[in-house]
């Protein structure tokens, strides 16, 4: 029974951490660029402000536009119930595996792209078109990375993958694992709208993907979508850190172990956030039509990862 409470607690932890993670990456980035930067807690104030503002929607928009924020938020939140953030394996592990996680996130993307088209503006359509292009060509890499992880662990269920890596620590530095990490890292940048694929801090039509889709949203709808975007970043970060370096994930449900697990999770996320911030200060955004090349690189890395796990078995 305590497992179920822990599951819900874990989702609440994710909800609470997500805006902070976004703010933290932004803050690090500002510091690295020599700016003072907004406080890391700014996204929390933003969310509060947005929830208290009224909503203005386009007169062309249909019910789909008003339904999408709820669906995007809920499907992303549902994912946090399925992935091992602080403890593994949890009871909900049987409900879904890594493939389900990927397709639940795709569900959100699908509806967000439709909502981008709904107000009938060119920006929204542009964002929807680009987002779906990136999502479609990122998909094979994700599937192959899953394949690579599943080969090592003998399962696509996340709890089992974490357990297996904990039991065989040597696997974490096998070529398959390292290549898979690199592949998934590139895809993470694409899927969460970070540089060099998308620029999360601009509203320039030439560069934006995600922001263009959500341009017509305001008030509580925008709050839900921003929060979901933060959750998405947190989900990909925790997949990367907990699948490939699962140390610190609690395997027993004692308060001490769980407390430690939360602290370890936060520090792992912070470390990855620093890495992303560092990367974002060092590289420029790619031209949209160069993005497929980057994703092709990640695909090849993932393919090599799977091949090497086949040959080194």
């Amino acid at each position: 029974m305590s497992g179920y409470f822990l599951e819900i607690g874990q989702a609440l932890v994710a909800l609470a951490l997500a805006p902070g993670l976004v703010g933290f990456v932004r803050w690090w980035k500002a510091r690295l660029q020599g700016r003072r930067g907004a406080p890391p807690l700014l996204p929390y104030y933003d969310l509060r402000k947005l929830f208290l503002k009224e909503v203005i929607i386009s007169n062309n928009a249909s019910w789909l536009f008003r339904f999408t924020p709820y669906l995007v938020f809920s499907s992303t939140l549902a994912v946090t119930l399925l992935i091992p953030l602080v403890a593994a394996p949890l009871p909900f592990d049987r409900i879904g595996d890594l493939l389900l996680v990927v397709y639940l996130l795709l569900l959100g993307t699908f509806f967000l792209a439709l909502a981008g088209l709904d107000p009938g503006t060119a920006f929204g359509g542009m964002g929807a078109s680009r987002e779906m292009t990136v999502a479609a060509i990122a998909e094979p890499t994700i599937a192959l990375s899953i394949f690579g992880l599943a080969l090592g662990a003998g399962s696509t269920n996340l709890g089992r993958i974490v357990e297996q890596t904990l039991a065989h620590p040597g696997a974490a530095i096998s070529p398959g694992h390292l290549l898979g990490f690199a592949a998934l890292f590139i895809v993470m940048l694409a899927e969460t709208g970070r540089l060099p694929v998308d620029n999360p801090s601009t509203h320039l039509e030439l560069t934006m993907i995600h922001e263009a889709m959500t341009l017509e949203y305001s008030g509580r709808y925008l709050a839900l979508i921003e929060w979901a975007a933060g959750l998405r970043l947190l989900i990909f970060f925790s997949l990367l850190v907990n699948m490939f370096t699962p140390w610190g994930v609690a395997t027993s449900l004692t308060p001490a172990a769980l407390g430690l697990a939360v602290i370890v999770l936060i520090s792992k996320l912070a470390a990855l956030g620093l890495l992303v911030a560092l990367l974002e200060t060092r590289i420029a955004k790619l031209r949209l039509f160069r993005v497929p090349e980057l994703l092709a690189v990640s695909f090849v890395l993932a393919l090599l990862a799977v091949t090497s796990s086949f040959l080194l078995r």
Partner: protein
Amino acid sequence: MLTLFIVTVSAYVLGMLAALFSGRSAIGRGLVAAGAAVGSIAGLALGVVVITSGIPFALASTRFLPLTGVALRLDGMGAFFLVVVGLVGCAASIYGFGYSAQYAGRYSLRTLGVMLNLLLLTLTFQVMADNALTFLVLWEAMSLTAYWLVVTEHDQRGTVRAGVWYLAMTHAGFAALIAMFLLLSSTDLTTSFASMRAGSALLSPAARNAVFLLALFGFGAKSGIIPLHVWLPMAHPVAPSHVSAILSGVVIKMGIYGLLRILLDIMGGGPAWWGGVVLGAGAVSALLGVLYALMEHDLKRLLAYHSVENIGIILMGMGAGLIFHSYGLMTLAALGFISGLYHTINHASFKGLLFLGAGSVLHATRTRNMEEMGGLIKIMPWTALFFLVGAAAISALPPLNGFASEWLVFQSLLGGSNIPTPEVAIVMPIAVGMLALTSGLAAACFVKAFGITFLAIPRSPEAEHAHESPRPMLAGMALLALACIALGLAPFVVVPALGRVLVGLGGLPDTHAVFSFNLYLVTPSNFAIMSPTLVALGLLAVLGLVPLVMLLFRANWRLRVGDSWGCGRVGQTPRMEYTATAFAEPLRRVFAELYRPTKELSIDFHPDSKYFVQSIEYRSEITPWFEKALYGPLLWFIRLSAATVRRMQSGSVHMYLVYVTVALLILLLIARWS
């Protein structure tokens, strides 16, 4: 079972009679639809009874059948396909009652009604055929009735051409099937499938390989496997929409049925390379199918290309099954075949639904061109909702049925790690990548299809003055939408049932220990566990909780409606919207190597200054280069032979008499000396 069978047949026959005698009146149309619907439901019930009881239904008691060379027997696999026929047939015929009203006075409702019922009747018998002769005769009957239905709107541009392509391709396939059956039955076509099964083991490996290749060609031409798919995107869109639903949902699945029947049931599986070829053909069809669908802006053609894609996905599951089968990994093989069959019924339901939805749009706007649509979600809310369900299902979004079966296909490919030889096993990750790319592109394509068709502002006066479809059409779509949801939520019923269907075929074991009646979907050796039912429940719970929590924390609930932000410009027109072409443009660039787009741009400048543009004309097309490369020489050869033969056809009776005499003499001489 006999009662259900008699009800099925007589309902279809009554439907045909009703069409013959009063096809034109509304009552007649109602009777035609009722006959087809009742027949479909009875057929579906018969299929379910055979699957659940596990007892095949044979028509041996009737005395005259053996004399005619006809043999009918319905086993589990046939019953499964009968369920598919019943599901789509029922929805399509109810829909057809409303849809065919527009044909009154324009096209022959009599032919349409007779042929629709006849097609469903032949499909029913097709899955029961128990010897080669019966199978072939029904196969030809199915192709011909389908042809009649395709050319219903015979005066529209492209219809007759599409019909000719369909006839030519399906007959090329038919020839291959005759050759295949002659090989299998050692030239006696009335040999029953049971004795063929026994005899197939005695065939030489070369003969077995020939049977495999002929089956793949013959059934592939029916299913639209690339490169035999050229007729499909021509023929399916021009048919009446409820017929398109049956053609794409059911008729092309007969190719899958045939492949399973021959390769798995009669031949009992084969070497690994058979599976590899099927898997490869499936992967290529899936990927190219969806890539061509992306560039298509004719709503029904887009859906037709997606049929090619989904046949590819089904074949990927089956190919994986065949490979595992050849290595004796029977549980994994069962998983592969189950995933293929599951995707078969799922594709039947969502593609049927999407074609019906496209038909409603066509009915309301009189156009299939997506660039002239838009804003229909407000005018046709129900059609839009049903189409959205279909679009989400075909994009494999959880918790709908497309996800459940694609998850199983993924899992059976992941099982490739159990294959002992690495050089074969290494094929699997590539297939996984192709399947993932396919499903991602399918999602992109359906964002386009739904978004451009139903959302934003109407792009033409026709779309502005559209209307919601009449009730029977909505009912047909609602039925299939419910099927999409139910099949997605209840894999714990479907998967064990499919396991039962496959037991014993090609030595597949009883898998009820693995695929049990369990809320969780479990793959062999607990490789993966998932429960779409609980996912759906969880999603609904969270979806309900979020607004509640927002209320609790006093979020602002005020809502104001205003104009879209137009960068300062007042008044938004449809011309400012994103178009389907623009939506697909990034992907067209990414895959430019495949599409080889041609571009023509001509700009008329103002005579005084080139800074003022008077008009811009832009034309861009994609080149189906590999179809040209493949069918170009073939068509050239056929034309050349036709021209040669034409010289003999002088039209003069004297000449024909000479031909007859000469031919007779030659034959007699041959008979004398041989």
